[in-house]
């Protein structure tokens, strides 16, 4: 609480300073001129595939469940500045041999994220750092045998997703590039209700290594 009071007190001091400030100072140096950006420009798009690993934890889980699956993604966006891009990313992982318990590999798990992403190119090379936030989706289907008829009970969860990662644009022409990505997707899905089982506060974290094709 003292921290909050201190903060407000200093805000007040700042306010006093606003009223006593000098006229705007115009003696600033001109901005540094740079050449054309070497990476993505204007409207750009990217799609790719790769391998992924999903790690699922929950509020009562003493350990995490780990499974591998195939991943795919699509990104489309525009440029904010020489070094910063903004875009949308759609990502999904599909694992057809998933299990919430040891030895249980009958569940099909699919997680997806639709996020707004920011990509930052710290230098003039192709290296970028990516981060984003958006909506997350998870679906878990368990085959059940009811009177000789096998059907799938599906439970879905929706929540919030974060993504982060890094990558490298390798130009193959003026308009196209190959892009390598290492990404993480953290998806908070809430409670997942399966037949005879309830898994609370599920968080699925997906790690992905992929190759993409970029139109820039």
């Amino acid at each position: 609480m003292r921290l909050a009071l201190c903060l407000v007190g200093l805000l007040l001091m700042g306010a006093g300073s606003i009223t006593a400030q000098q006229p705007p100072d115009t003696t600033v140096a001109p901005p540094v001129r740079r050449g054309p950006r070497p990476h993505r420009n204007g409207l750009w798009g990217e799609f790719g595939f790769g391998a992924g690993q999903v790690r699922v934890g929950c509020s009562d889980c003493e350990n995490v469940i780990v499974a591998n699956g195939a991943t795919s993604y699509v990104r489309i966006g525009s440029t904010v500045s020489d070094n910063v891009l903004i875009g949308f990313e759609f990502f999904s992982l599909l694992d057809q041999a998933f299990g919430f318990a040891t030895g249980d590999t009958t569940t099909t798990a699919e997680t997806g994220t639709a996020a707004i992403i920011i990509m930052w190119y710290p230098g003039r090379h192709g290296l970028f750092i990516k981060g984003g936030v958006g909506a997350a989706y998870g679906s878990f289907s368990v085959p059940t045998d009811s009177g000789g008829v096998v059907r799938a009970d599906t439970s879905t969860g929706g929540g919030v997703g974060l993504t982060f990662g890094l990558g490298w644009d390798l130009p193959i022409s003026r308009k196209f590039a190959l892009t390598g990505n290492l990404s993480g997707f953290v998806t908070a899905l809430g409670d997942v209700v399966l037949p005879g089982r309830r898994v609370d506060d599920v968080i699925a974290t997906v790690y992905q290594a992929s190759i993409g094709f970029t139109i820039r």
Partner: protein
Amino acid sequence: MMAPVVAVLMLLQVDSTKQFPYPPPARPLLAFGETILINTLVNRVDAWGFQQDWARSGTRAWARNLRLGWEWDEDAFFTNMFSHPYHGALYFNSGRSNGMGYFESVPVAFFGSWSWENFGETYRPSLNDWFMTSFGGITLGEMFHRVGATIRDNNAGGGTRILREIAALPIDPIGGFNRLLRGQWSAKGPNPPEHAPADYVLRLGGGLRFAKQFIHDSSATSMGTFLLDLLYGDQVGQAYKAPFDVFNVRVLLSTYGGLNALRASGRLYGKNLNSPTGRNRHMLAVNQRYDFYKNPAQSVGGQSIEIGINSRWLIGSKGFGIRTALFGDGILLGAIDAPGTGLGDRTYDFGPGAGARWELALEKHGARFLRVFSQLEYIHAVSGASADHLVDFGGIEAAIPIARGLGLSASSTIFGRTSRYTDGRTRDAREFPEARLLLVWTKVGFGK
């Protein structure tokens, strides 16, 4: 071992020329390195100074945290929704005070929080901490960076200069530290553009707050309250230049409960929808928002992105006008308390959501003297109860001038919440009306 290596690497990026180049050179290595130093310092103070077992993390705890991954924590509402965002502002301003722009500093905030969650504690990394520290830190950090630059004055000298540097320290300690490192506490030079916002309205007030059920075991219905409102920049009169070139912040304190409300919203993007020279203005805006409301009767907060239109219609030639705002928002992660919510010791839920708000105000030279507003938010819990929460908040505020800069302000607000549970529990709803009467002082700097 890590910290000394980082410190040596950082020294390579320290510039001690005592100059104020604009734009300042970006020093990403120094920025990221400072987040590691912040974490190391906080961790060692907790471990050695306060003998906290949770701070005695080492390679075994790091490996476990990385292996098990994210979980939801059980910290108090104030800790998760205010203290962590303030901590995140330190990370973000490691980037801003090392020449990095707003977007370039975003990964610095996320990295600082991620590394603390995985390496700074023996506890498993907390997903809600990562969210609140990073997103809240970005909102508060950019605001603190700009207010700090406004307080500091590179043209000032002597005792005034030192006082300004010290006054900015609690708001932007990392910026102050870097300036000290570069000898910029005394060197003279040009100020950055954010030093002098073209338009601002500052309102301070003190008075009484009236409500029922302030204190559960007491019959008290009134208490002292303090208000701070800052509008930095003009939402419709100012063309978009950079993130947070326009922002507003409201702080409400009470003699019981301390910090009651902290709401900050900064413009991430803006676009003129009609002629910028017209009398009536309409501007599309994308804002990043931070909300914190805490009373004995209610706790709600979160990090949001909103998109909508700010408009202004001028009336006559004496500076009067009507302002409207209509926004829809997405809550990246919100928190709310209700009966039966929470996890373990925690008494509130976390979840994403969406909502909308509108506002109608009468103003003179940018200062609102009558304001009507309403907001509706939906939060879907992903940690805590299996619940969906609906929050509505609306009210009216009026400020009557009584002398130059001084006025009386009266306001009435109603906070309502409805929670629906999907695990069979009955629906819960409650309302919380309150009123305020304050003596306010307003300073307006519009249209300079």
